[in-house]
């Protein structure tokens, strides 16, 4: 299994073949559409991460110190961004998730989506994942 750093490097490489914004967003949307659909029972009020712009559902599970995630959004772009986050974090050791340096959004030019908590819930989602990972570390030990 690839590490968080290796997965980020792969995402950066994939996007490097897409110099145009239209191509990047088309690819991002495709990623979101191809990601496994979220189980209906996970679309709960508890799992709702509310941004000012879009709704994000984030289901979290912790098994033996490993973080498992599912996500969905009413926005295609946010769903794609969430799919990238899941590629990086889901199935990784909680300790790694809680400490990881998340840099790929900036490198592929999509950092604006993380720039403010008020915009789309993505930053709120990252924060949720990290604090969940911290709890999960505790449960795994």
């Amino acid at each position, binding site marked *: 299994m690839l590490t968080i750093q290796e997965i980020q490097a792969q995402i950066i490489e994939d996007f490097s073949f897409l110099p145009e*914004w*239209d191509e990047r*967003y*088309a690819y991002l*949307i495709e990623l979101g559409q191809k990601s496994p659909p979220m189980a209906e029972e996970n679309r709960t009020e508890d799992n709702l991460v509310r941004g*000012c*712009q*879009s*709704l994000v559902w984030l289901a979290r599970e912790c098994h033996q110190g490993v973080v498992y995630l599912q996500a969905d959004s*009413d*926005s*295609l*772009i*946010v769903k794609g961004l969430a799919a990238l986050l899941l590629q990086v974090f889901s199935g990784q050791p909680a300790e790694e998730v809680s400490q990881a340096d998340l840099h790929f959004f900036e490198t592929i030019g999509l950092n604006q*989506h993380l720039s403010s908590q008020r915009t*789309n819930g993505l930053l709120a989602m990252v924060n949720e994942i990290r604090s969940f990972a911290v709890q999960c570390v505790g449960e795994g030990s």
Partner: protein
Amino acid sequence: MTLDVQKIRADFPILHTRVYGKPLVYLDNAATTQKPQAVIDAIVDYYTRYNSNIHRAAHHLSNLATEAHEAARRTVQRHINAEHEYEIIFTRGTTEAINLVAYSFGEVFINPGDEVIFTMMDHHSNFVPWQMLCERRGANYHVVPFDENGDLRLDIYQNLLNSKTRLVAFNHVSNSLGTVNPAQEIIRMAHDAGAVVLVDAAQAVQHVDHDVRALDADFYAFSGHKIYGPTGIGVLYGKEKWLDAMPPYQGGGEMIERVTVEKTTYNKLPFKFEAGTPNIVGPIGMAAALDYLNALDFTEVRAHEDAVLAYARKKLLEIDGLKIYGNGKLHTSIVPFNIEGVHHYDLGTLLDTRGVAVRTGHHCTEPIMAALGVEGTVRASLALYNNFEDIDVLVESIHQALKILRR
């Protein structure tokens, strides 16, 4: 005569910048407007030549700064046709102006059981302060709904008015719908019921009539940055009789007459409401913006904005599945819309990559979004420098974005 838009565009340096390598098409003017060179120059000139604290020092620079600051007050007074210059209170913006009234007017005139009326199409800044006031003073509030076109239900408003109504607050122009509310009628109805009226003119003062005495507004609030001036400065106009009867909003320097251990007496208007060193340069920049605007023919400005608005609505409605919210009897400068099956954030993001700046989301009017049954909208909003080409780029960019979002 028609407005020379090319000449006006040349006065706004930011309109010539590029974003993501594309020429900027700025259609987020209801959020904030861009600034003409004259405003930028006035701010630079202040800091370059005569930056100084005002109203108290005996030196030359302070005299220059005080004179410019107070001249700005007179410019605002003339612009909205207030009777006295001391009826112009400088605030941080519309929000602070409304909060000032909610606090200081409420402290004296709103008592348990009294009623306040505002509307479902008000911005949070003209909604939440009244909820807070009513909670603090044990008063009640009513919210006037709007109909499916985005017009206020004046029949319901009429029924809500009664002898307990102390204050009515409404926006002259809705920032989310673009509706121009019948301000004179709303104010007259309130006055007939014995209520005092606050007009939120944040989206109105730059686009429609703004004569406070013709409106007979008791309070009138707007922001500098939405009328081509700087951020951090706004105006509260209040009739002298109300301002005189209201206690200060904040204590500190500037707002006092005498301070002793036993008792403090307050300064006269407008300084009673301007505690502390004010935003000195803000009014100077705002006055430069008003001077810029007043050098143009406002009838021509309105005719131009209305023509571009009509063109935008026509071209947008030709897009398959596009719905415009806000089809009130009178509307101005703001086009809120959604496209079937398309999330507003996705469309806004893709427009951005083409240099087109619009606003997406709930526009700080969650009750409106709830009433419309949507999570948010895309909002294109115009200013005097927008032209027909801007609309063509917007529409073409939407078509390009839909190719990505609908495949």
